């Protein structure tokens, strides 16, 4: 029966080509616009750590004095002492301190001019915690970390640039004034969004890229990194008179560090929350803190709070969806016209024994077919739209592509939209009174 309806639908579409073309065009344009923005949204709002993000948490507290009034509570970053206290307590399954800073990098013996790159000073759990893949070597050991060893892990990108992609473990990098031995080289790694920086690169980098930039090129043990690049750290914010020595923040009243913890069960997460609360209360009792508010969002909640997705992209998505709504209204009107034009034919079918549901189904089949054809057009327009997005030089331009789920949703959305648009006209058509129509033939 369905095949017969499709055949009828095809005949009907061929009969009034202009009206068919108008409807297909409306669906295609509406789908093209909304799928372009939805694909960008889909890529930007993806889970950077699928399967693991619910176990990664971002503890927050507020070390600022009581008379320092800004609306943000608790703060997205920590001071040195709080971060070190929480980290040295080792209450989580894994935990990583993170701070970025620009560092001068020279590869002796390559004859290349020095580069200014972003360095991540972090603790060794960073790599297993965030599933960072290694091509050669591996992470530094906890002993390296405690001993402030001058060792580093470099990105695959930097390894390609400096050493032609070979195994560079054991070679030496000159970081600012220090010689640092390479212990690990990463495989290409690009978490999207770049979740572990809670403020989207507004500290540390001179040109913030938001949450869609590339990870750092050099990774060093936390304390060794602070030593090597001392004087080049940037604060998120400070109170009082700020740092005594610019770029040296260990003893300054400044927020500049972030801590991530991995907690493998909800019970452990609850235990960590109460540990965090206990710490803050204790610090208040000691007179070091004025506020006791804490928070511990998981990874996806943190991205949501940090407004990782650019406002422009959200706005475009809303615009595109309202545009799709306009296209749908348009299609309802045209379908209504099309079905009622055929009232006579429907009257004959009804008189010959077709039930109302049968007429209804036949009309919906026609609407669905239009949606399917419109979906093909919409898919092509989406590809064109994504090409336009790629041509704009945005931080995430190179990430934008259509994956299988989005390809499938293009057609699902197109057919679903046209079926919804077809509901009302089909209902009207199935209510046509056969006798009245037969008289006018």
């Amino acid at each position, binding site marked *: 029966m369905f095949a017969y309806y499709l055949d009828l639908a095809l005949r009907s579409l061929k009969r009034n080509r*202009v009206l068919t073309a108008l409807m297909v065009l409306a669906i295609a344009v509406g789908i093209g616009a909304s799928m372009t923005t939805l694909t960008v949204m889909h890529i930007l709002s993806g889970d950077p750590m699928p399967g693991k993000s619910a176990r990664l948490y971002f503890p927050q507290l507020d070390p600022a004095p009581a008379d320092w009034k800004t609306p943000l509570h608790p703060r997205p970053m920590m001071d040195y002492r709080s971060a070190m206290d929480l980290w040295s307590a080792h209450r989580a399954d894994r935990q990583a301190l993170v701070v970025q800073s620009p560092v001068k990098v020279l590869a002796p013996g390559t004859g290349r001019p020095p580069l200014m790159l972003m360095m991540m000073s972090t603790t060794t759990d960073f790599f297993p915690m965030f599933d960072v893949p290694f091509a050669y070597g591996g992470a530094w050991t906890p002993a390296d970390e405690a001993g402030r060893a001058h060792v580093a892990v470099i990105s695959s990108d930097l390894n390609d640039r400096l050493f032609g992609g070979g195994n560079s473990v054991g070679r030496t990098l000159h970081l600012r004034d220090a010689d640092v031995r390479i212990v690990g080289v990463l495989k290409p790694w690009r978490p999207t969004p770049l979740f572990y920086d809670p403020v989207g690169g507004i500290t540390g980098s001179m*040109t913030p890229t938001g949450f869609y930039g590339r990870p750092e090129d050099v990774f060093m043990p936390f304390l060794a990194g602070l030593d090597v690049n001392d004087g080049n750290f940037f604060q998120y914010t400070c109170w009082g008179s700020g740092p005594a020595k*610019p770029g040296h923040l260990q003893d300054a009243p400044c927020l500049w560090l972030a801590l991530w913890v991995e907690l493998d069960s909800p019970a452990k997460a609850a235990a960590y929350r109460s540990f965090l609360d206990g710490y803050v209360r204790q610090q208040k009792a000691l007179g070091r803190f004025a506020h006791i508010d804490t928070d511990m969002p998981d990874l996806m909640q943190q991205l949501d709070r940090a407004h990782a997705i650019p*406002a422009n992209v959200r*706005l475009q998505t809303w615009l595109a969806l309202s545009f799709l709504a*306009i296209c749908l209204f348009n299609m309802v*009107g045209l379908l209504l016209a099309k079905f009622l*034009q055929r009232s006579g034919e429907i009257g004959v079918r009804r008189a010959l024994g077709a039930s109302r549901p049968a007429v209804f189904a036949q009309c919906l089949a026609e609407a669905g077919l239009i949606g399917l054809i419109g979906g093909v057009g919409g898919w092509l327009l989406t590809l064109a739209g994504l090409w336009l997005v790629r041509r704009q030089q945005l931080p995430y331009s190179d990430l934008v592509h259509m994956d299988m789920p989005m390809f499938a949703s293009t057609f699902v959305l197109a057919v679903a939209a046209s079926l919804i648009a077809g509901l009302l006209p089909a209902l009207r058509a199935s209510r046509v009174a056969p006798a009245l129509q037969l008289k006018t033939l």
Partner: protein
Amino acid sequence: MQIKPILSALKKHRLATFLIAMEIALACAVLCNAVFMIANRLTAMNLDSGVDESSLGAITVTGFDPAQATDLNARMVAGLRAVPGVESAQVISSVPFGAQSLVAGISLDPSGKKTPAVVQFYQGAPGTIDALGLKLEAGRLPATSDYQPLSGQEYFPAVSPVLVTRALAEHLWPGQNPLGREFWMAKWQFRVIGVLSHLSVSQYTEYAEQGAEWTVFVPTLPGGQLAGTYLIRAKPQDIESVMTTARAAVAKIAPEVVLDHENSHSVSFLRERFFRTDRAMAGMLVGVIVALLGVTALGIVGLASFWVAQRRKQIGIRRAIGATRGDILRYFQTENFLIVTFGIALGMALAFVLNAVLMKFYELPHLPLYYLPVGALALWALGQLAVLGPALRAANVPPVVATRSV
């Protein structure tokens, strides 16, 4: 033209009429807001930087220690001045649209409890004001003795005579003479000696609670924290080639430092890059508007054609009993006008709802009222244009149709 028969005909097609009206209403709401957003972007893109953008460029280097600052500045300035085509080269903290220099909250009393404004501090060596082409509106320019050195790791001299922009002066001291006024940032004190007509911040974001021109110029001698960024002035027609040569020259002038490729460009280029996303957004909005008007017009054409086809017999009868072609044409035009008017009335309300939502989530200002009549005119025109084809076809229906198969 009688409206009553048109209305009673429309009553028979309530659903179709409602659909077209809703389409018009949505189009009206999106159109008004999209045009308004484009206008907003264009205003933002017209930001007056206050400097001679076409003749200026910046060279930024990093990767040196503060102890080397004075030596580096001397070598860089001498080296850059030797680049052919360079009219002047000076040490500056930042240029408009370049990397941001110090941004901080200031207070009008030394206690620093209240910060009425977050401002950007520009620092520049003697000659920078001339090179930038800043226009003084009141007060005086800094004298040679006003340029003070920075000691150690300090950001500013203890007390600095400064220039502020007209916009910042109006914000801090509305309606009062700003000359001689003082303000503080942490432990540093600043005294206003002159007012600049314009000088924009480096990286303006409309979301930050910071004015686009809330800037302070602090005359400072190079050295210490003031090092690494150099203002280049050249003839507008030479600036791009001069900048290319200057970027290449850095490797010879100071091989030990790292050129910041991102921020070493002509100010025109930096400006173009800064507004790239705004331009892309405006472009996308124009695309949405065109597609929107196109789809709406097609919808009107489709439905009007259907109605004309459906009413061929009636049109024939009307023609047979004396209606002119003009009558038929005007009938369909009036019908369209009525539907569009109904849609616009709904659309105006919708436009304000949409604007309220946008204001809440995207910090957009209020939609000015004059957008509504303009949007209405555009949609009326669109409706009339779209219906013209089907209406002309209707007018061409011969009266003889009436005699066939009635």
